[in-house]
């Protein structure tokens, strides 16, 4: 395993997820979804389903999922994280790719 990389995705631009999916498997990649980017976590979203099948780690901000009433619509493989865990994740990763 290479370095830990965080795709920190706060916008509704699918490009961030596409870039993450194309990221080298040598690195330990986590995709973190916040704000309206949490809609990408919807089970019917193809890009995220594909990323999960590729064994990329995907987390989503729990508060933003809950406000939007999405908890029943997202895959079990997506880890819900609170703000404190998000801060830990940010400092654990050596590279942050903001989108």
């Amino acid at each position, binding site marked *: 395993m290479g370095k830990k990389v965080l795709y920190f995705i706060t916008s509704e631009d699918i490009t961030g997820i596409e870039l993450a999916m194309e990221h080298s498997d040598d690195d330990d990649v986590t995709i973190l979804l916040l704000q*309206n980017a949490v*809609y990408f976590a*919807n*089970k*019917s979203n193809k890009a995220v389903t594909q990323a999960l099948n590729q064994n990329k780690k995907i987390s989503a901000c729990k508060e933003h999922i*809950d*406000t*939007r*009433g*999405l908890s029943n619509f997202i895959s079990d493989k997506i880890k819900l994280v609170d703000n404190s865990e998000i801060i830990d994740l940010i400092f654990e990763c050596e590279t942050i790719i903001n989108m």
Partner: protein
Amino acid sequence: MSEEKNIVILLRQPPHGTLYPVEGLRMTVAVSADFDPITVVINDAVFAFIKDVDKTMYSMHIEFIRNIDLDILIDKKSLDDRGLTKDDLIDDVEIKEHQEILDIIANSTVTIPF
């Protein structure tokens, strides 16, 4: 003049992260004094009407619109695209086939997007 105008308030953005759909409903309420606006819901705005969404800002407007017998119409195609069904939605809205949604927009005098 006012009686002839068919106004469509078109909600298209997701319910949180922006205030657009809630402002759209507020506009439906405001405009209802002079017109009979139809609220049409497409794309990610359909998420504003799922059962579990936080409706702190929404419920007052939705209730008002229901009480004065105005329609909130959901585009079935937008639901299908998002893997949502009637059961996921609250009761105060009505699902319409995409063609009906198109006809309603086509027959409007003005469509106002939010």
